[in-house]
């Protein structure tokens, strides 16, 4: 009997005693052994810790104790989530070797549910990028075509699931960093409503935009992980005081009567094949009984610009703590100020430096109103646009990424073209809304295309209903 390939089927078989967590783990470790050298999904594979966690799950099952909803599910963690005693680098030289003395809340919750952590995944340094090429520790390659990028910034987590190095993984999404790599790697990726999943222990990039979410092979698994991870955390004041999301019951509901929004003034420039898949997605939803309605989001075209002021501004402050004084890299120098400079010059890569400079400038006296202040106003306009659109529609559908996975190196010298990868994902973060990417057929060169489902604040139930329908209707059929 084959090893089950989804998180929910793994947990079910382990809980029933049909499979051991250990044998499941070993099969995933064998995949890592075989293909990781070509993919580079991980900064660190935590083999011994994983074996110990699997053994504990097996002991719980043997002793008749409840091993948890994710019993024995091998899960990879993006390397910007704190893991006690296990290096957490953010793919940056400045944090190389740093071992957090504490676990992120999501790590605690997944472990309590019986998950088995297989490793820490590669990312664009401090989650700044769309290709996982801005890592200090090497590029992550797309499992569908290793000459291509996996997307980013959570490229390692997306690739880990696509390559079956883990049954699920966690990423963080500040402007599309879960959804875009999910689309490029052909897996499901969810950015939940801001405040749904605790950020405690997630190394901050842009605090008002960052949100943790899952990568999985199917829609059901994402619902399962979110049910385990979500719910109020007193350690994160931006966490919404509410019980965990309840999503499983949405998966089997059809989409009859749901109103699906199509943005009439969506920025153009997508691959024709991506546009074709999205058109097919609308048709499939209509065929399943949903109503397609036109909505306008006139401020959406300013989203990218606003984002590249707000996110760097917050980052310039969040990353100021990497000064060589307390932890991580220190480059010795004659006095404190020059030590800060030497440490940060050596420790940060080019993209991080670029954004720190952008953000510092945008917040500076005399420039605040023209840049940061104006970007905050655009953020408000985008939220207002969405509010109007969601009076007419229950969810909105767009491409996740305008293009399929591009060749490694194709955009590294052109930051603006790289930034455009996130044109459809960024508005969601500015509004604090949930959105997810669902694989929907292929585009150029047979590479995966993702369709994005957007919903209003706490609209995850409708979002998952539509995502599940898209999965059932996807070219090639349901998994």
């Amino acid at each position, binding site marked *: 009997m084959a090893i089950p390939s989804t998180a929910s089927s793994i947990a079910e078989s382990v809980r029933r005693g049909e499979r051991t967590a250990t044998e499941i783990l070993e099969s995933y470790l064998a995949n890592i052994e075989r293909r990781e050298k070509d993919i580079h999904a991980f900064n660190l594979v935590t083999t011994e810790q994983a074996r110990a966690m699997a053994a504990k799950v097996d002991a719980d099952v043997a002793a008749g104790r409840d091993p948890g909803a994710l019993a024995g599910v091998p899960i990879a963690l993006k390397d910007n989530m*704190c893991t006690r005693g296990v290096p957490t680098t*953010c793919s940056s030289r400045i944090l190389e070797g740093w071992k957090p003395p504490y676990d992120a809340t999501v790590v605690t919750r997944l472990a309590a549910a019986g998950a088995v952590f297989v490793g820490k995944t590669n990312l664009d340094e401090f989650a700044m990028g769309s290709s996982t090429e801005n890592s200090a520790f090497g590029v992550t390659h797309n499992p569908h075509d290793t000459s291509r990028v996996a997307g980013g910034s959570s490229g390692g987590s997306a690739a880990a699931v696509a390559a079956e190095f883990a049954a699920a993984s966690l990423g963080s999404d500040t402007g599309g960093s879960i959804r875009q790599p999910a689309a490029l790697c052909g897996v499901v990726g969810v950015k939940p409503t801001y405040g749904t999943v605790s950020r405690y222990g997630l190394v901050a990039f842009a605090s008002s935009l960052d949100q943790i979410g899952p990568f999985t092979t199917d829609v059901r698994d994402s619902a399962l992980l979110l049910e385990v991870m979500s719910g109020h955390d*007193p*350690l994160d004041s931006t966490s919404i005081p509410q019980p965990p999301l309840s999503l499983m019951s949405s998966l089997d509901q059809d989409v009859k009567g749901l109103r699906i929004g199509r943005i009439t003034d969506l920025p153009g420039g997508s691959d024709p094949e991506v546009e074709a898949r999205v058109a097919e997605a609308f048709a499939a939803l209509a065929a399943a009984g949903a109503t397609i309605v036109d909505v306008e989001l006139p401020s959406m075209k300013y989203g990218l610009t606003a984002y590249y002021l707000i996110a760097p501004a917050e980052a310039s*402050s969040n990353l100021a*703590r990497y000064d060589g*004084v307390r932890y991580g890299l220190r480059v010795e120098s004659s006095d404190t100020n020059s030590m800060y400079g030497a440490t940060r010059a050596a420790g940060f890569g080019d993209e991080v430096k670029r954004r720190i400079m952008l953000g510092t400038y945008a917040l500076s006296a005399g420039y605040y109103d023209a840049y940061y202040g104006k970007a905050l106003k655009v953020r408000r306009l985008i939220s207002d646009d969405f509010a109007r659109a969601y009076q007419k529609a229950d969810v909105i559908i767009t491409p996740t990424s305008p293009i399929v996975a591009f060749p490694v190196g194709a955009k590294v010298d052109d930051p603006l073209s790289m930034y455009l990868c996130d044109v459809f994902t960024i508005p969601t973060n500015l509004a604090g809304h949930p959105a997810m990417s669902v694989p929907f057929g292929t585009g150029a060169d047979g590479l995966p295309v993702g369709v994005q489902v957007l919903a209003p604040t706490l609209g995850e139930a409708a979002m998952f209903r539509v995502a599940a329908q898209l999965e059932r209707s996807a070219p090639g059929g349901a998994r």
Partner: protein
Amino acid sequence: MSAEKYMIDDYELVVGLEVHVELATATKLFSASANRFGDEPNTHIDPVTLGLPGALPVLNRQAVELAMRIGLALNCTVQPCTFHRKNYFYPDMPKAYQISQYDQPLNIDGWLELPGGKRIGVERAHLEEDTGKSTHIGGTGGRIHGSDYSLIDFNRAGVPLVEIVGRPDIASPDEARQYVTELRQILVAVGASDAKMEEGSMRCDANVSVRKAGQPLGTRCEIKNVNSVRSLGRAIEYEARRQIALIDSGERVRQETRHWDETDGRTHTLRTKEDADDYRYFLEPDPAGPRDVVDRSGEGRLADVAA
């Protein structure tokens, strides 16, 4: 006390005091570590206090309540407020920003009445977090410049402070002493702080300028490192005489921050206005809904913060 105006030669003094007080809370402003003075260094620390990557602040309700008491005792309007980040690098400030209040502080527009009946205006009394404490080893004068190395104690980092910004209504060293003495008694009486200048739980900076009667305000200097009520009076008088001597000899008073030296009884230049920092204040995105901490009735009651 004399009703006669305090003058040095034919100059009058214009003094405004900025007083920082540590609140007598059980724990820090944004974390559960103990707020205690005098213990072994680095024993009251945690991921939030150290500004470790991924740590997040959670606002201490008791600190807000004590800060509101101060506002009410100083006849302030207690209002809905926000937190901002004040960004600058300093080794004993772990996040390289201080969480403070900027354009919407908790308490505004109050006053304190001196024993003789004169009211000294209070512009604002806002909440912020304290820094750690550096001890510079080697070199001279305990300064960081020229020292061999520095030790940092983070026990004080994150301790809740209220900064009480007085209006420049003080006209003599004696009024300054009265203001601080009176303020100290109020802070102790309302249970907000033990307000000990010697232990640093109450710290006072003085903005001093001089002018001839009827003239516009003179250029002010900020005096730091004043560690007792007695030194405060001495420092103000010294600084006023220094400025008068400059003006009388035809020179200009430069706007600068000056350091009071208890041993030689003088103030010394610490930094001039030219290297003033740009703190790049912006709304703190981490402590959620600081606007909602205080209700909008303006009556100074705590709103029900969701648990």
